[in-house]
């Protein structure tokens, strides 16, 4: 490990390239089926964040910064919170109470059903995913001095 921030060996990088998309797909499945099965926005968001962390661990900081555009993630996190608030206030405007389910409910056990709940699940998933990733990213940005040396 001569170059810090360059990531791990070729084996780890190759395996990560194949598995990260499967992990992310599983997270998206958990989010989209949040109103039917156990799971939902929080659990799926954590799984997608772990996929992003896999990339960060395997490929290093420099690659991830170029590939993900961290500033965009900060804006996405704030935006998802605002969208959640807007949907809640729309509930006040249309049905009279905060977060009221104003859309058509649809049939039970269908994928497209339950009104605003899948939308809220997706918004929460984005928020949790980006938030968790940014937390660990900020921890990784600390500069650790060498053992015994003073900074």
């Amino acid at each position, binding site marked *: 490990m001569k170059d810090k921030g360059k990531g791990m060996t070729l084996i780890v990088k190759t395996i990560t390239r194949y598995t990260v998309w499967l992990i992310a797909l599983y997270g998206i499945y958990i989010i989209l089926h949040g109103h*039917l*099965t*156990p799971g939902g926005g*929080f659990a799926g968001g954590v799984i997608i964040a772990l996929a992003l962390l896999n990339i960060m661990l395997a490929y290093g900081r420099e690659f991830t910064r170029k590939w993900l555009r961290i500033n965009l993630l900060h804006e996405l996190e704030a935006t998802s919170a605002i969208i959640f608030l807007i949907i809640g206030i729309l509930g006040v405007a249309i049905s009279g109470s905060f977060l009221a389910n104003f859309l058509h409910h649809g049939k039970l*056990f269908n994928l497209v059903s339950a009104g605003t709940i899948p939308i809220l699940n997706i918004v929460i998933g984005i928020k949790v995913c980006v938030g*968790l990733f940014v*937390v*660990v990213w*900020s*921890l990784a940005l*600390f*500069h*650790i*001095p060498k*053992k*015994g040396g*003073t*900074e």
Partner: protein
Amino acid sequence: MIIYVLCFILLLVGLYGVLTKRDLIKIILSLSIMEYSANLFLILFAYRQDGVFAILSKGEQAAGMVDPLPQALVLTSIVIELGITAMLVALAVRLYQKYNTFDITKIRRLSG
């Protein structure tokens, strides 16, 4: 009844780690164990013999289910634990930057 005692023993394991370990990372891990024992206690309170989980799925009859309220509470608690752990790790990293060690007996003097 025995499971509650075991849960309390798990809490004591975490407390032992917090009180006796010198390494900051081990202290943070012990604190996590204490939090887990609290979560486990709430979940065990909500458990019911032969209960199903509180989500109705296709082709299933509504039956006696476990109490979903503590589970929602524990989900919130897990999120708060995540925040606490992230903050503690950030503080530990800052201390490592200043003192070059995680040993709390060596972190004594002011260091610029």
